[in-house]
Structures are given as structure tokens and as C-alpha cells.
């Protein structure tokens, strides 16, 4: 099939599915058609790149020439970048055809995908559910074949949670491996590459993750060649202080058993890092990012309420008010023990190749019009703090570790459930290889019914 035909197929899927999903929020079909024709010419000349002709959308958190980079923020509706974000430029250089952009919550700072500019994105498995966020438009586009793959980004689980919620593969890369200039947040005009934000591919197969990381990474990814029979994997399914839905724990167990059946040695482990301390260090950063992405007058209101909460109150309101009066540097100080935590983790990764754990506390959730500072998290019918959304994503983010999310099963309600595979620093090839073995053992990606009807 030619690049132009491949692109037309993507247009057909967008025409058929996007009205219900609202995942793709900007398109330039004329420019994409020119790019696809140029790709066909490269194939004819024998000069095609490794991703040549693949029609893709890009998460609207990245700057892409030819499109506004809004990140779901009305004040950025007219922000037309003059350069591609370096990660996007690498994809373009490898031959991809960028046909459009996908929806995000404002400043990529929500676990649902809805904003004033473009409205709400729906989960292709059930339109009444959110695809998660912030890469919500991206996962919906990949799961339904509207995009060959996506470029996601992750600060608070923004690759891992939506991939788990829609049944696709995603890779949160080792911090710094993929360049983050040209990504929002931070605000496009004043800040440099920030800590904790990483980019990575979202795909329908583990093999695609590996191919894309070879293009996106700014230094070579160390290869992983150990045979499955010598893999040692830890399994961690209990988060102190946070609830995890039965269906999610079951999916991790299914993944662990499948890998054990392929010959890997799998064992249950206790957390090799101080789980609560790492999580709370993360929550300080989450609050810092929350305050930065909202009007400062909201921060003043939170600060004024600080006296209402006891020191051990773990509610979102307590966290947001407690942190509102602290400076950025005071909040950054919560990350100071990071080197010590990483050092303590070294013996664990000397023994284990990776750790299997839940990517999120629950399968996909119904849409909720309330902001995350107003709504609870519902886990197996129980009301919990929404900040428990970060219990399972915090370790990889705080410790800068690579983490691959892979689909495993669907729960009784038909919602996808995945597993998070946490690896050692720079072990990106390890977690992707394990996702590949799991894919071979369990069948991997399954298209949602909505998309299957089209095939």
C-alpha cells in the first residue's frame, strides 16, 4: 500500500470514528497529502526513512509546525510554533506523515481529557468512560487506527493511565532520554526542560515501541538480549495508603503468570523503595505543577485555607492548601532524598530485571464534570482521594525510571486492564522486551468494538 493510500485510510477512519470520540482536534489534510506523496517518492527512489509514510497524529502538548500548540489552554489558541519540538522533528525526519493533533486537558494536567477549546474526548471501549488523560486523545486515536502511533508525554501517569484505560502500549522513557523542548507544560515562553516530564511512544504493539524509541532517543538505548529463561521479575500489587481495584490486581497477576509460563522467574516482592515517602515527594511536585497551571488567585485561596487542615490530613484539599504557601524551591526540596532512594534500589535491580505493578488504581472511569480538586476517586465502589491516582506512577516518575504499560485483559465490564513494567535507570529496552514477551503470551492489543466494525 502506498503512503497516500495509507493516509486516505486514516482519513476514512477519522471520518467514521472521530465524531463519536473527539480525539483528533486539528487536521491539515492538504499538507499531509503532500507529505504522503513525498514519502511515496522516497520509496520509489530507495531513500525512505524507518517510519516513512506512517500517518500519525501528535498530542497537542507538543509544538508541531503547521498547527497551533494549544495544550488545551484558550490563551494558547493562537500559539503557532515556528519549529517542531525536537522529538517531533525526529519523527518527521524518519518519514512520518503528520496529519493532525489530538486532544489534551489544559496544560496536560488532568486524568480526563476535556478542555474549553475542543470539548471532551471519549473512550473507544465505552463512550460513557473517559480514555484517561492527559494523552487521552492520543490513546483513542491509536486504539482505533486513526493514527499509526502517537507521541505521548507523562508527568502524572499521562502515558500509563490512558494506555491502561484503552488497552494500548505506552512507554514512559528514562528521564532525559527523549528531548522535551517544545512540550507544554511548562508554559511555552518562560521555562526550560523541566524535571519529571518525559515523552514516549503510544502504539498497538511492543515492537513498535522499540522501533520508535530507536528514533526518539537522543542517545542509543542499551540493548537487552537476555533469554526469557534467565529473566527475574518482581511483582508488587499492594500500595500502602492507596486502594487498587481487584480487576487491576488480577491483570497484574495474569501478566505475571503468563511470563512465568514462558520461562521467566517471577516472585512477589516487598517495595524496594520507601513507597509512601516517594509518593509524598511526588505529591509535593504534583501540587507545585497544579498551582503553576492555574490562576495565581486560586493559589492564594488555597493558601488562606491552610489552617483548616491537620498535618496528617492526606486529602487533596489539605495537600493543595499546605503547598500553596510554599515557594517552588521549598517544594523541589521534597525530591532531595532521590539519590538515596535510587542507591537503595540498586541491589533490587541487580537481582531483578524489572518489577510488574499496576499502572493505575482502577480501570477506566466514567466521565466526571468536576475538576480533580473536587471529585473523589472511586475504586471498586469506594470513595478514595483522587491523589491515589499517583500512587502507582510516582516511583518511576520521581526516580526517573523507564516504565512500559502493556494491555493484558478486559475486566467483567469489558474495560481494558494493563500492567506497568518498571525497569532500572536506562533499562528502556528491558521493559519493552518484557512487554513484547507478554504480548506474545497473552495476545496483546485488541481493537475496541467501535473500531472492529470498520475493519
Amino acid at each position, binding site marked *: 500500500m502506498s503512503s497516500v493510500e495509507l493516509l486516505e485510510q486514516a482519513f476514512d477512519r477519522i471520518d467514521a470514528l472521530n465524531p463519536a470520540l473527539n480525539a483528533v482536534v486539528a487536521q491539515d489534510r492538504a499538507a499531509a497529502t503532500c507529505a504522503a506523496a513525498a514519502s511515496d517518492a522516497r520509496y520509489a527512489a530507495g531513500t525512505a526513512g524507518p517510519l516513512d509514510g506512517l500517518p500519525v497524529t501528535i498530542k497537542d502538548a507538543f509544538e508541531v509546525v503547521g498547527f497551533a500548540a494549544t495544550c488545551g489552554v484558550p490563551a494558547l489558541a493562537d500559539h503557532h510554533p515556528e519549529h517542531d519540538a525536537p522529538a517531533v522533528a525526529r519523527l518527521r525526519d524518519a518519514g512520518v506523515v503528520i496529519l493532525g493533533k489530538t486532544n489534551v486537558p489544559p*496544560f496536560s494536567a488532568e486524568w480526563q481529557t476535556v478542555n474549553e477549546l475542543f470539548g471532551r474526548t471519549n473512550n473507544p471501549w465505552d463512550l460513557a468512560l473517559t480514555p484517561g488523560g492527559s494523552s487521552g486523545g492520543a490513546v483513542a486515536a491509536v486504539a482505533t487506527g486513526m493514527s499509526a502511533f502517537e507521541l505521548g508525554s507523562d508527568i502524572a501517569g499521562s502515558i500509563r493511565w490512558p494506555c491502561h484505560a484503552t488497552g494500548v502500549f505506552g512507554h514512559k522513557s528514562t528521564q532525559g532520554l527523549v528531548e522535551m523542548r517544545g512540550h507544554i507544560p511548562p508554559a511555552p515562553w518562560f521555562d526550560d526542560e523541566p524535571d519529571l516530564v518525559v515523552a514516549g511512544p503510544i502504539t498497538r504493539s511492543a515492537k513498535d515501541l522499540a522501533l520508535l524509541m530507536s528514533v526518539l532517543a537522543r542517545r542509543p538505548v542499551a540493548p537487552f538480549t537476555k533469554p526469557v529463561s534467565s529473566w527475574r521479575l518482581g511483582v508488587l500489587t499492594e500500595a500502602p495508603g492507596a486502594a487498587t481495584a481487584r480487576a487491576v490486581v488480577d491483570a497484574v497477576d495474569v501478566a505475571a503468570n503468563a511470563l512465568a509460563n514462558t520461562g521467566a522467574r517471577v516472585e512477589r516482592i516487598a517495595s524496594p523503595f520507601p513507597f509512601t515517602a516517594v509518593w509524598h515527594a511526588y505529591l509535593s511536585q504534583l501540587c507545585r505543577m497544579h498551582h*503553576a497551571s492555574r490562576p*495565581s488567585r486560586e493559589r492564594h485561596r488555597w493558601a488562606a485555607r491552610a489552617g483548616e487542615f491537620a498535618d496528617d490530613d492526606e486529602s487533596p484539599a489539605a495537600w493543595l492548601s499546605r503547598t500553596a504557601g510554599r515557594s517552588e524551591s521549598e517544594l523541589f526540596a521534597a525530591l532531595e532524598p532521590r539519590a538515596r532512594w535510587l542507591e537503595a534500589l540498586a541491589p533490587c535491580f541487580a537481582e531483578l530485571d524489572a518489577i510488574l505493578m499496576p499502572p493505575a488504581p482502577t480501570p477506566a472511569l466514567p466521565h466526571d464534570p468536576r475538576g480533580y480538586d473536587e471529585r473523589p476517586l472511586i475504586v471498586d465502589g469506594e470513595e478514595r482521594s483522587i491523589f491515589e491516582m499517583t500512587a502507582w506512577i510516582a516511583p518511576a516518575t520521581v526516580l526517573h525510571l523507564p516504565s512500559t504499560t502493556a494491555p493484558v485483559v478486559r475486566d467483567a465490564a469489558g474495560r481494558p486492564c494493563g500492567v506497568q513494567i518498571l525497569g532500572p535507570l536506562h533499562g528502556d529496552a528491558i521493559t519493552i522486551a518484557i512487554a513484547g514477551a507478554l504480548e506474545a503470551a497473552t495476545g496483546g492489543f485488541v481493537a475496541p468494538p467501535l473500531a472492529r466494525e470498520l475493519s
Partner: protein
Amino acid sequence: MSKTNDEVYEVVRKHLLEICPDIKADRVVRTASMKELGASSLDMVEVVSCSMRELGVRIARQELSTLKDIGGLVDLLHDAALKKKVA
């Protein structure tokens, strides 16, 4: 006729005080940074985009990323307005 540097400063100052009502007006000077005054990232994006819109100019991200204070932003906006007039 293009605005003077002082008039551009008044545009930026007006938007900053409207968007951040908690910032005391007497603290807004050319040598202050919006961040130090307590503006959030969202506030700063809104101040820049409202100022650009009112002045009818656009500034590249690369130029804005070098800014240290309000005076620097005013100078960039003023230069952009002058260039637009020449063009």
C-alpha cells in the same frame, strides 16, 4: 502610529494586574519578574497572549525564553511593534 515603550509597558502592566488581582500595583516595575511577583505559568501565558493580541504583534518562543523581567518583555513587544510598522 506605533506605541512608545512606556505605552507598551502600560499594556503589559494593565494585563498583569487584571489577571493577577493579588499582585500589589506598586510592586510591578520593569525590573521585577512576573514569577517572583507570584504569577503562575498560566497567568504569564495569559499576560503575554493578551498583550500580543492588543498590540497586534507576535514574538517567537526562542526570544521570549531569554526573558528575565517585565522590562525585557516590554522591550521585545515594543521592538516587534516597531518592526511591524516598518514592514
